[in-house]
């Protein structure tokens, strides 16, 4: 739900009310043509519609209303007389405004002829000397800006065949394809038919080529820019295959034959003669050697992409919303969780039974459950902007209380997070922002002295990174004073005077319970109950908090939060018959650890993975599990905060949909385990906290 839609809805509602009022008032003047008040009411209503409509980009409404307004103004001045004709005209105009409005929300269509007639009739009523007013001046003269898919999207067909020696210029064509992928919806077909047999293959020559069907609002020039470094060492074509024109969504998608003819790989006659047979056109064309399989595949992909994009647009227009209480959603998630657990049991049972029919049912159930889970989780997602907006008020109020001038910038308000996470994030964020305002940003006079702009800036941004959302709060204030923090910590007995700490470690001290640096406690922040609570809340959401500061430049706080709390994709592993779960989002790969490998590392617990040194932890040792290690162990290599670390387990069992159950309060000091889950056979598997385990390895 974004703000513009909100405003548009509000405008529509308001306009509806005003239109109703116009109707009423018109009927009144029909009864009593001298009713000045009724005429005024009509005029005011029309005026409001024109004004708000113009502001919100309902240009067409504003344009048409302008002419009507001029007529009403003339009437108001007594230069026109009320007669049946005029009343009819006003009523018909009113109905026309309604139909323009309706058409913007996808209901009905505007009748352009009707509009023309009305405008002529209205203009006829305007005295000549008023003609100059009759032209509505819209700010930018743009057509209806309400269109949901502006800027305009087009579908491009890009064929890219890099030169054979492309690798020798250090170019990785894959990166170019990656870059294109970021432009929008895409469908990529790789052609590898040119790869020669192995005896004549030259390993550093590129034999591949790509066809990419891309839906994007970028221009062909933008796409060409991607290939700027290689343009004279490749065959590149960029064609628009479909422009998305409003109202075009229902038009028939191009037939595959039309696409091929357009690309001039085949003539219309070929298509026609082929069409007489009853097989599918694509198959037939291949059989007859008119085109090869790859070309057909590209054309099919193109067709699919166009269909898909149009469908999406149709849905956008149709999409309506429904309010549900969050309790209902919570219980839905619980039920899905239970279903996932039961499904795991079914899968396990069926694989033990080895009954083919049962297996296929179990697989079907698994597929559906996964879909149901994803959908349910998706419903719970909310844009973080809902809490961002209220911080604007907070910053405004607090900064004026403190005599500071502060600007709040937000970014990524559309980033989606689980509702529970958003709700619990509210308080910590308020606290962090208050800290920025109170301690971070200096007063205007101090800022001026230090050569900064008098107005300070706080930047709040959110962005998706894998299974996490990263929220940063950045101010351009004074930054943290490491000496003052250290002094305070010594005073409070948190650290010893002799302690040698890095800057980062000193900053970390402010998360310690009972710590506060403000010399005077203001009513805004500085009671020292804050940062440790903030950290605790973030950790309880399975997130992490990091702080970075440079004196005079400002402070940046980074929160990393999981997308969802209820169900995750996990990797099931086992050590001595006990099962554990590692969050799949952090897992990079699994490798084997032979006795030989582990002997070679001479107890350093380092593994060479394709030339890169990766440290590992023996979970068996770390968790004090008794028993003999198997000869062949497995290492699950994970990527946590850009560091790779391996975990040695006995066996890697496979992916597992993990319904997270919280551990009881008795386990609150257990740091390595973030939760538990129930497996298909009713056994319990602990979910390992990769983050905490890595911290352990670091210390």
């Amino acid at each position, binding site marked *: 739900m974004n703000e513009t839609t909100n405003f548009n809805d509000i405008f529509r509602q308001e306009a509806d009310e005003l239109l109703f009022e116009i109707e009423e008032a018109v009927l009144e003047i029909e009864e009593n043509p001298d009713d000045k008040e009724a005429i005024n009411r009509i005029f005011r209503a029309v005026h409001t519609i024109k004004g708000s409509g113009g502001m919100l980009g309902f240009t067409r409404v504003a344009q048409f209303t302008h002419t009507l307004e001029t007529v009403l103004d003339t009437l108001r001045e007594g230069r026109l007389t009320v007669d049946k004709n005029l009343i009819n005209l006003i009523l018909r105009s009113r109905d026309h405004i309604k139909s323009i409005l309706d058409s913007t929300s996808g209901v009905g269509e505007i009748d352009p002829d009707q509009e023309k007639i009305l405008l002529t009739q209205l203009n006829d009523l305007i005295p000549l000397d008023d003609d100059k007013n009759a032209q509505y001046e819209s700010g930018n003269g743009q057509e209806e800006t309400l269109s949901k898919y502006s800027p305009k999207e087009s579908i491009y067909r890009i064929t890219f065949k890099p030169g054979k020696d492309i*690798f*020798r*210029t*250090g*170019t*990785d064509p894959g*990166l*170019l394809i990656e*870059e294109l992928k970021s432009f929008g919806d895409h469908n990529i077909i790789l052609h590898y038919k040119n790869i020669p047999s192995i005896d004549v293959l030259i390993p*550093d020559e590129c034999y591949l080529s790509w066809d990419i069907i891309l839906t994007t609002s970028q221009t062909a020039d933008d796409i060409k820019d*991607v290939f*700027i*470094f290689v343009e*004279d060492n490749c065959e590149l074509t960029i064609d628009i295959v479909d422009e998305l024109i409003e109202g075009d969504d229902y038009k028939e998608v191009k037939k595959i034959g039309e696409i091929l003819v357009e690309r001039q790989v085949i003539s219309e006659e070929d298509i026609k003669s082929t069409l007489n047979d009853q097989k599918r056109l694509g198959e037939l064309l291949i059989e007859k050697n008119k085109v090869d399989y790859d070309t057909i595949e590209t054309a099919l992909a193109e067709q699919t992409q166009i269909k898909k994009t149009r469908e999406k647009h149709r849905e956008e227009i149709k999409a309506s919303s429904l309010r549900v209480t969050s309790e209902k959603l919570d219980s839905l998630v619980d039920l899905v969780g239970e279903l996932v657990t039961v499904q795991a049991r079914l899968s396990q049972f069926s694989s033990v039974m080895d009954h083919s029919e049962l297996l296929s049912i179990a697989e079907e159930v698994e597929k559906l459950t996964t879909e149901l889970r994803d959908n349910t989780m998706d419903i719970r997602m909310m844009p973080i902007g809902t809490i961002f907006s209220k911080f604007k008020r907070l910053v405004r109020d607090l900064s004026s209380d403190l005599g500071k001038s502060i600007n709040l910038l937000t970014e990524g308000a559309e980033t989606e997070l689980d509702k529970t996470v958003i709700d619990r994030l509210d308080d910590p964020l308020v606290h962090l922002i208050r800290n920025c305002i109170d301690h971070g940003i200096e007063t205007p006079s101090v800022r001026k002295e230090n050569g900064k702009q008098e107005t300070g800036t706080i930047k709040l941004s959110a962005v998706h990174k894998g299974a996490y959302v990263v929220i940063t709060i950045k101010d351009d204030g004074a930054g943290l004073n490491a000496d003052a923090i250290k002094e305070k910590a010594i005073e409070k007995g948190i650290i010893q005077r002799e302690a040698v700490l890095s800057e980062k470690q000193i900053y970390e001290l402010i998360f310690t319970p009972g710590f506060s640096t403000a010399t005077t406690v203001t009513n805004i922040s500085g009671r020292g109950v804050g940062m440790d609570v903030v950290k605790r809340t973030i950790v309880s959401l399975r997130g992490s908090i990091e702080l970075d500061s440079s004196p005079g430049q400002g402070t940046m706080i980074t929160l990393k939060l999981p997308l969802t709390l209820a169900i995750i994709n996990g990797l099931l592993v086992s050590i001595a018959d006990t099962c554990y779960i590692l969050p799949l989002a952090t897992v990079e790969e699994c490798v084997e650890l032979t006795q030989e490998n582990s002997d070679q590392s001479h107890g350093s617990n380092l593994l060479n993975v394709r030339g*890169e040194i990766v440290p590992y932890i023996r979970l068996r040792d770390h968790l004090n599990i008794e028993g003999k290690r198997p000869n062949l162990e497995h290492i699950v290599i994970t990527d946590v905060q850009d560091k790779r670390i391996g975990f040695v387990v006995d066996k890697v069992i496979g992916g597992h949909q993990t319904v997270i159950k919280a551990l009881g309060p008795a386990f609150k000091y257990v740091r390595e385990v973030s939760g538990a889950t129930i497996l298909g056979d009713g056994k319990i598997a602990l979910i390992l906290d990769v983050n905490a385990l890595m911290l352990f390895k670091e210390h």
Partner: protein
Amino acid sequence: MSKVIMAVDDSTSIRQMVGFILRDAGYEVIEAIDGQDGVNHLLNNSGIDMIITDLNMPNMDGIELIKQARAMPKYKYIPIVMLTTESQDNKKQAGKAAGATGWIVKPFQPDQLLAVIRKVLR
């Protein structure tokens, strides 16, 4: 592990600016003062992932550096980006012929430099 980029330029200010931008973006930077120095680094360092080089330099120019780098098996396929000015179109062609991956025209904004790197280096 962060990627290592070698920045080759005879102008200290350019080297420092490029170095600053790259380090700020999380890359590890090796600076070389001319083509010859660059070649020495290539011979003594094993893990250079990318080269950014000026073209006009004393001792050994950028074109020769690119040629020599491409002649070393280790650096045959790494991305090499050259720093050019608008007027150096023939130099640019020569650089491409020698095996450069791409180029960036001086003066450039930090964002432009980083965008070019993201385009060629993973």
